[in-house]
């Protein structure tokens, strides 16, 4: 079947490439159309989903890649694991989650939410390239607005900002005040 051949080709390309490959590059390398690549990725995802496979198709910020399934990770940690030891402090995490869930957002708005000065935290997050300036608010003084970066997505292993963990039903009700 044609779809199978295309999935096979995409799998080989992702295997040979060191880094994630974005859709445009996959089209270029494979010579397939955008739709064909997307179809092939779907086919590959399905083919790898069976339990006999230890690899999976992963979609991260930069594109697509093949990687060991998370379920197997503990068994591989000893030999191949690299600890991500640059963990964030609680203050940094709080600031970062405000940016992540409320972007675009100005520093004043962040400070208002947390009730504390955000200067230091913003500098830290900017220097670690987890947030960036994304525009200016249409308000007096035209304050800078911030948003998250691709490095942020990578650090939290998210493919898109839409994959941010969500509040569960109970929490949503508790905080529904600001659903608006």
């Amino acid at each position: 079947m044609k779809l199978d051949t295309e999935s096979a080709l995409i799998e080989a390309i992702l295997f040979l490439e060191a880094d994630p490959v974005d859709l445009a590059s996959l089209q270029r390398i494979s010579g397939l159309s955008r739709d064909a690549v997307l179809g092939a990725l779907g086919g590959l995802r399905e083919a790898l989903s069976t339990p006999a496979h230890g690899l999976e198709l992963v979609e991260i910020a930069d594109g697509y890649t093949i990687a060991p399934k998370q379920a197997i990770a503990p068994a591989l940690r000893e030999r191949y694991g690299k600890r991500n030891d640059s963990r964030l402090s609680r203050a940094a995490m709080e600031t970062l989650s405000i940016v992540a869930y409320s972007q675009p957002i100005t520093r004043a708005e962040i400070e208002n939410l947390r009730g504390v000065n955000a200067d230091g935290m913003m500098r830290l997050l900017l220097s670690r390239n987890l947030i960036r300036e994304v525009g200016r608010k249409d308000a007096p003084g035209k304050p800078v607005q911030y948003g998250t970066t691709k490095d942020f997505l990578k650090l939290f292993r998210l493919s898109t900002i839409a994959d941010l963990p969500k509040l569960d039903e109970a929490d949503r009700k508790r905080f529904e005040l600001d659903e608006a």
Partner: protein
Amino acid sequence: MRLEQFEGPLDLLLFLIRRSEINIYDIPIHEITEQYLQALEYATRVDLENITEFHSLAATLLLIKSRMLLPSRYDDDDEFDDPRQELVERLIEYQKFRRLTLLMSEQEKSAEWVIEPRRKQRSFEFVEDDELWQQLDVWDLLQTFSAMMARLSPERIIDLYEEVSINEKLSLIHELLDDRGEFLFEDIVVRPDSVMDVVCAFLALLEAVKSLRIGIFQNRLFGDIRIRRRPEGRSPSEEPDSAEART
């Protein structure tokens, strides 16, 4: 209780509300303001960077407390405007982000370990590549083979060595039959001075008689032994003088 353990004034306020087990929508502002100021008073002795922010919220609390004491008809419309409203909204919003921060921390923790391949770039061996095949040298073949032999145990090499010489002759027989259809025994003796070579050639010939359709001819005693393909469908016994070489 130490102020450093709080992320900010809202964090402290939430702690106090929770500790008093009161409804966040109906905060007894007098009571909670007391507690807040107490905590602050205790902490001013500590050198704290964000102390002004704690004081700022204290001022807000005091303002709310004073407004609570004023009659509500102070407002121009009939709607009751709770002075606590804005603070409650902030607290709930802050609580929501605290919850989200917790979710993010869990997410971060799950990404704590990265599994990394030992090699980044992979290459693909194009066995089918014609150019590669064209570059081949017969010495590559020999070196590959001898390297492989070096990995084998001595007995297996000896086994193989003996088999090789006979097999080699057999191959030669195949080749000569294909090329010319007929050849002389001496054609398959490559090194006439080697007894081993002659013996192997002879054994190979016997083997060929058994498995291939060939006939062996000798026109006189000690003369040339001529080997040729036998016509289809005839058994060795039907060939006039095919048995001579076996004796």
